[in-house]
């Protein structure tokens, strides 16, 4: 049996290796050659020379590595290059997105912008601001959170602490289904009710749709957190004769509160950026409307859309500035949520 590989020469582990600078050199060479070919052939698109360079690089790696190191190593190198290329490919648009938003957003973003509405400002005029949109967003998202968060948390409590039967199974299943509802469908649902009862757009209608989008997210994250609470804690509390509901309120929920807060904040961040339901239900309004229960309101994401649709340089500037504000708001919520998660994470002792 040992004869199969017995004749291997000594030094069999001495795999010939390409030097470390090989990859870098080949990449640089391919890029140069790619640009060279593009110039020679009169191609001017950056995509073209990048593509030529990438193909040169990959083919080059494969051929050279196969000759020097063998096929398996060559495959390994190809995989490595492809993974790196994919990463860099993805970085370009994502960086561009953030970069453009910041650079173009700061242009008109100032205190005036934050404290004035769009009342009597035409699309083509400069000036105007997002005060009315901020008010609208805060009210709609706030109301949605007031509805969505408690219902979501209570549902999760039911599923983890009480639910074993058919009802719990049904709820779990439909929470899954609900997670997949497109935001515009949630908007259409509320719209269908409004059509049924002949109602005009108002802020709270948007909140209802946002709450529907929020609930499954909160249920899922809260469920995860409650499952992390060790059963010993519950048993210890119950064994002291503390009733179950007080055990949940005083022991289980406080233990998981960090994670639950994180989940709620992430859900808030998600619905704060939703445009579609707001477009259908709240409609948008250039004037300040502080009452979410009557009359059309503005909202930040919707404002961005409408300023984009305005189609002038002045309105584009406003759209970017509002986008920057919205991203900042969402990011602050996200970072805050993560900070809380890290800070209040239940110590698992591992």
């Amino acid at each position, binding site marked *: 049996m040992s004869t199969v590989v017995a004749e291997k020469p000594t030094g069999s*582990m*001495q*795999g010939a290796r390409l030097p470390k600078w090989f990859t870098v050199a080949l990449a640089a060479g391919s890029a140069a050659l790619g640009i060279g070919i593009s110039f020679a052939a009169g191609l001017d698109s950056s995509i073209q020379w990048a593509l030529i360079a990438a193909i040169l690089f990959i083919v080059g790696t494969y051929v050279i590595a196969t000759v020097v190191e063998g096929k398996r*190593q060559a495959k390994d190198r190809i995989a490595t290059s492809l993974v790196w290329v994919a990463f860099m490919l993805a970085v370009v648009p994502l960086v561009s997105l953030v970069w453009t938003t910041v650079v173009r957003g700061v242009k008109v973003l100032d205190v005036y912008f934050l404290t004035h509405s769009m009342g009597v400002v035409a699309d083509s005029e400069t000036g105007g601001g997002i005060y009315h949109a901020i008010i609208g967003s805060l009210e709609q998202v706030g109301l949605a959170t007031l509805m969505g968060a408690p219902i979501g948390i209570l549902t999760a409590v039911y599923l983890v602490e009480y639910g074993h039967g058919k009802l719990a199974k049904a709820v779990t299943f439909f929470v899954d289904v609900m997670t997949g509802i497109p935001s515009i469908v949630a908007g259409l649902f509320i719209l269908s009710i409004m059509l049924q009862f002949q109602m005009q757009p108002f802020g709270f209608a948007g909140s209802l749709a946002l709450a529907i989008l929020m609930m499954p997210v909160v249920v899922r994250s809260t469920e995860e957190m409650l499952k992390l609470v060790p059963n010993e804690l519950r048993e210890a509390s119950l064994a002291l004769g503390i009733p179950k509901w007080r055990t949940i309120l005083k022991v289980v929920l406080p233990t998981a509160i960090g994670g639950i807060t994180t989940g709620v904040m992430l859900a808030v961040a998600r619905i704060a950026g939703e445009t579609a339901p707001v477009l259908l239900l709240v409609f948008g309004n250039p004037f300040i409307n502080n009452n979410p229960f009557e009359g059309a309101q503005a909202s930040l994401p919707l404002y961005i859309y409408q300023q984009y649709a305005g189609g002038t340089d002045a309105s584009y500037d406003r759209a970017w500035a509002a986008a920057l504000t919205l991203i900042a708001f969402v990011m602050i919520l996200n970072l805050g949520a993560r900070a809380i998660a890290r800070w209040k994470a239940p110590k698992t002792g591992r």
Partner: protein
Amino acid sequence: MSKRIDVSGLSAYYGSFRAIEDISMTVEPRTVTAFIGPSGCGKSTFLRTLNRMHEVTPGGRVEGKVMLDEENLYGTGVDPVAVRREVGMVFQRPNPFPTMSVYDNVAAGLRLSGSYKKSELGDIVEKSLKGANLWNEVKDRLNKPGSGLSGGQQQRLCIARAIAVEPKVLLMDEPCSALDPISTLAIEDLIGELKERFTIVIVTHNMQQAARVSDKTAFFNLAAVGQPGKLIEIDDTERIFSNPSVQATEDYISGRFG
């Protein structure tokens, strides 16, 4: 075709922490060498330096020389991937690939190294499973998932997988610690058979096991927690268990610490 291992001046690090210090020893071909010692003494770390698995751990780094017959595993230009073909390994917990069948698990290593004909592959798989004393138990379920076997069978499957590629050396890192006594016995019997073909190094916490299966025993110890582990002595197993030359070895074996 088993080979001699000759280690000299070997130290291994995790980042800046030195886990084992200045170890030198020789392991003869066609023998079983057991590593014993208290937890944290670096015997597993040392084992993993013998097939360059230590450097897979983030921050893992090795200094010194490990000669496999004429060749230094840590010499310049040596490919760690090639080293691991020569020096196979069996782990503490059975780790068959969960998504592969019994057959594919054994063939996994062979498929890496290139082209075998289907019949050739089948022969080697059968031979390896027989070599691991597992053939009779699994020959009717070669296409079932490997994770469906019992723990002891899984571990023998892992041994079959390791020996299928015909390594020169077989490293075993506490191969029985997750198994019941009957499975343990099966593996110990197997080790006795395998040493005809491979150089075997086994880490164990079980003193009786070391006494039963090994020809030589190496005792590792550390001065204190946070200190690097060292090789205290290596000798014939019989001597280590009857009349060790170092007091610490005797204390450990007689159960006075560790």
